[in-house]
């Protein structure tokens, strides 16, 4: 029985969040997003030239996301630089989470590169990365139908909860399910959905509902961060 969350949060409470836009001056667009101690930067370069040529698409620009954890970002051992199969997979699902909102038809043969880097990770890193990337793409002035907001939901023991932290992902006294999910705020459509763990089907519906609620808050934060940057006329 998972009675109380280890950090004292309510079951549907997200960790303290923070969002800021325009944090990497050389990039065309940039932002960072935090869920508690998980901190993700995203920088966008593009549209720009794409080499090698065989990767080019003559009908539209392509989106290329690269997710990477800094060597000192883990609360355990150092993370060997150079990525892993895990980070490559996260790069892929991140790209697929963001593509549905982007319109790259105006940029044939070019690429929009998104680099996601994390100085600190404590679960929920791919969701933090997606939240930062969505803001960075908007900051870069790209045409987007919508932003994308992401959060992890899941089950720990007998409780359904939002924004699992590191200790909850590693919970050993009962079944766990970890579900990162990304949603387009205005249409409610889902662009990222993954799960590992054990979960009855009915609980999935409930969890998606909880995710939507959390994503509404996340969207407001992303919106405010974007407006904040442009308010000062930058």
């Amino acid at each position, binding site marked *: 029985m998972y009675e109380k969350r280890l950090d004292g949060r309510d079951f549907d409470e997200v960790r303290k969040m923070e969002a800021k836009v325009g944090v990497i001056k050389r990039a*065309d*667009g940039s932002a960072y997003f935090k869920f508690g101690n998980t901190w993700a930067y995203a920088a966008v370069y*593009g*549209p*720009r*030239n794409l080499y090698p040529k065989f990767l080019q698409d*003559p009908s539209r*620009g392509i989106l290329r996301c690269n997710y990477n954890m800094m060597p000192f970002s883990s609360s355990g051992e150092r993370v060997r630089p150079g990525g892993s199969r895990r980070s490559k997979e996260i790069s892929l699902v991140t790209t697929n989470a963001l593509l549905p*909102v982007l*319109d790259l038809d*105006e*940029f*044939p*043969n*070019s690429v929009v590169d998104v680099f996601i880097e994390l100085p600190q990770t404590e679960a929920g890193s791919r969701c933090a990365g997606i939240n930062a990337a969505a803001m960075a793409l*908007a*900051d*870069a*002035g*790209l*045409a*987007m*139908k*919508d*932003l994308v907001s992401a959060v992890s939901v899941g089950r720990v023991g007998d409780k359904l909860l939002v924004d699992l932290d590191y200790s909850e992902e590693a919970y050993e006294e009962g079944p766990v399910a970890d579900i990162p999910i990304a949603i*387009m*705020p*205005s*249409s409610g459509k889902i662009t990222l959905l993954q799960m590992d763990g054990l979960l009855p089907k009915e609980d999935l519906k409930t969890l998606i509902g909880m995710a939507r609620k959390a994503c509404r808050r996340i969207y407001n934060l*992303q*919106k405010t961060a*974007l*407006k904040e940057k*442009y*308010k*000062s*006329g*930058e």
Partner: protein
Amino acid sequence: MGKFFVKQKDIVVPGEELAEGMDILPSVWTYREGDKIIARRVGLVDIKGRTIKLIPLSGKYIPKKNDVIICKVTDISFNGWRVDTNSAYPAMLSIREATSDYIAKGTDLTQYLNIGEYIVAKVINVTSQKLVDISMKGPGLHKLRGGRIIRVSPHKVPRIIGKQGSMVSMLKRETKCQIVVGQNGLVWIKGEPDKELLVEKAIRKIEKESHTTGLTESIKSFLEKGL
């Protein structure tokens, strides 16, 4: 009767609901979904009658026919030069469009324009695949010598030029610098070193305060203080 959820000069983000009602027309950078009108990028709201559009605040330059831009030569081939346009798309300057002089076959083209040099050119054609051709034939189009080049957001170019060129003329007058503003966000400044730096700082100030009123006056006093 439809209604607007935002007002003139509001900053909006992608996906934000701007208005509702079939009698309101979605214009540039907005789209209709059902009876709602939604923002398609980060921008400034501009409402004219029953039409709503967004003015972009950021984004890279996209080459457009007839734009006058500043380019950097990056490569030389047998029939011309390849240039960087400060966008995702390089442009080609053919020998024919570079000069009216007769150039014999096999002439060393570096005599005319070398790699690393900057030019002011006009975009004469952009294909659907975004292949861009430029020309240096025409008034005000030429090689740039000396001076410095700075990069600004292409969306701030109209503000830097000003209504009928009023802002850039004022900058030139007060600092006695030569200034060329490219539609692609590159600006060339040439004059006394201190004045060049002053122009650069003034332009950064214009970028920052672009949506305020009385900007020309405020920049004028900034320049006067700095001189």
